[in-house]
């Protein structure tokens, strides 16, 4: 998370995995369900800081 600048682009692509909390900081579920893979991949692509890594 050190690269994350809390832009929230990922929230739009994968709202079940990423969210911005009350103080505008990003929170996420580290172990997302396989059904979320396509959304998380989309979130990975649009992250301005390229801060998201998918680990199998």
């Amino acid at each position, binding site marked *: 998370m050190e690269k994350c*600048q*809390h*832009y*929230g*682009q990922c*929230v*739009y692509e994968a709202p079940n995995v990423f969210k*911005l909390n*009350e103080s*505008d900081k990003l929170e996420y579920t580290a172990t997302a369900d396989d059904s979320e893979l396509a959304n998380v991949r989309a979130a990975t*692509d*649009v992250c*301005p800081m*390229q801060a998201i*890594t998918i680990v199998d």
Partner: protein
Amino acid sequence: MIVGAAMGGLRTAESLRRFGFTGGITLVGAESHLPYNRPPLSKDFLAKGKSLADIAFPIRHEELQAEFILGDPARSLDIDGSTLGLESGAKHNFDYLVAATGLRPKRFSFPNDLSQGRHVLRTYDDARSLRGVVAPERRVVIFGAGFIGLELAATLRTLGCTINIVAIEEIPLAGTLGDTFGREIRRRHEREGVNFHLGLSIEDLIGTKRVEGVVLSDGTELHCDILIEAVGSIPNVDWLTGNGLDLSNGVLTDQTLRVMNELGTSSDRVFAVGDIARFPYVAQSLPARRIEHWNIPIESAKWVGRQICHQDEPGSIPDLQTGERFNPLPSFWSDQFSISILSYGEPKLSNESPLVEGEISDEFIMSYRRDGELVGIAGIGMRRELNKLRGEIRL
């Protein structure tokens, strides 16, 4: 055949495989590097000594099964003959071709047209060359007050350089985000010690062997060690000439990103992705436009990959008959000092821009309306509120 091996080209190849394309994929690139992320070049790459490996996109080669031909730019295309010619003289045939050749920086020529000491920023090689000369106390003149110019000003100021920005516009970013937003950006830069010379151009350079200064259009002389030209970009579409395409500003496409000839007929085998694609609006009756934002290559690549994969299935082509049209939401961000701008849509289309929330001198959100309809939003901070509004934009 994907022409352009930067982010747009890579994302197109990934999209093709994701939608089930089983044919061969070749990416041709002018640069000698595998695809990397450009935005850090003006920021962390300069400031924090990042390497190419730090900014390279991860590539799953075993899934992608693509060949990369690097350092060999495309020079000619014959669509009817299905042949692409490269600078090395190599010829390649194709069934489908995706044009994703991006932009190059606009360069000026001056009466005293020195080349040493002058820089631009677009590629890794540009950034490395700039990093090699940057040091505290260096005097830097930046020509241009757009996003690249302002980001460089912030990064180099933080590294201890003296910064003079020269720009033709009266207010930085006014054309993109409006006067109020632009004036606030200027104020925050000035607070950090950046000097602006606005409403002015650079008329000539001072120096004998290398740039030692610039002469402005009002006669002012600014001495400098480094001159950076950040005055916009030119689409790399020269290699597409000779096919009857409309190349007046990038390459004109239809609403599904197929390139169009001057008679308005779409090709069924040649597509455009990223900065060079000039595509029509869906909800606005305005002329087709190019969008130079980072998310456009991603969105257009995804679209084109899917379209090529569905091309041979009758009735499934996402085209005007089925009503599906490429209609991405442009989005951009910019980090300058502690200023972190985020925007969606096309604020420049607006004819009014009321403040939605916050204080201009602190965190705020502005909305941009055209004849009452929301066409863009932009803000500093207040991310959660800003992201909630993005779904309401109509373009």
